[in-house]
C-alpha cells in the first residue's frame, strides 16, 4: 500500500485513544481502523479527513505518500 500513516502513534499521544473510539468518531468499524493502521486499506479522502480531524491535525500530518 503506497499510503502510510501515523494513526497508531497519534492514538497513543492522544490519551491512548482506543481504536473503537476513533472508529466511532470517523464512522467506520474498529476493523477498518485496524486495517488502515496496518496499511491493509487506504481510506477514502472523506474518511482520511475525518481521521485527521479526530486528532485536530492537517491531513499530511497523519497520512503520507510512500515513494516506491
Amino acid at each position, binding site marked *: 500500500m503506497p499510503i502510510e500513516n501515523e494513526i497508531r502513534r497519534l492514538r497513543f499521544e492522544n490519551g491512548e485513544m482506543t481504536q473503537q473510539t476513533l472508529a466511532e468518531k470517523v464512522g*467506520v*468499524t474498529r*476493523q*477498518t481502523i485496524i*486495517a488502515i493502521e496496518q496499511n491493509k*486499506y487506504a*481510506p*477514502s479522502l472523506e474518511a482520511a479527513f475525518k481521521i485527521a480531524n479526530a486528532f485536530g491535525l492537517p491531513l499530511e500530518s497523519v497520512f503520507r505518500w510512500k515513494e516506491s
Partner: protein
Amino acid sequence: MSFREKSAWVALITYGVVFGGYFFTLWQAWDDAHGQGLSIGLMFGAVVALVVVAAVLNVTIALFSPKEANASADERETLIDLKAERISSYALSVGVVCLIGALLIGWNAHLVANLLLASLVIAELVKAAAQIAYFRAGV
C-alpha cells in the same frame, strides 16, 4: 473478526456443506432409475436447509455482536463486497456459458437445472471466499 467476515464464513460453510451434500447425494443416485426424480425433492430440501441453517447461524453471530449487526456497512466493507461480487460474477458467467453449451448438446432439463444450481452455488462460494480473503489480506 468483524460481523461481516463472520457472515461470509457462515455463507461459505453453509453453501459448502448443504450443497456439497446435495450434489454428492445426487451424484451417487444419478445412475439409479429414481435418481433424476430425486433431484427435485432433494433440491427443495437443500434450499430449505440452506435458508434455515444460514438464518440460525446469522442470528447466532448477531447475538454476540448486536451493535455491528445493526450497523450499515462502512466504506471498506462496501468495497470488499463490490470486489467480491465482481469476482463471483466471473464464476457465474463461466457457469452460464457451460449452461448454453449443455443446452446446445441436448442435456435434459434435470441436468441443466442442476448445472444452473451448481453455477449459482459456485458463484456464492467464490464471493464468500473472496470476501474472506479481502478481509484477511487487505483491499
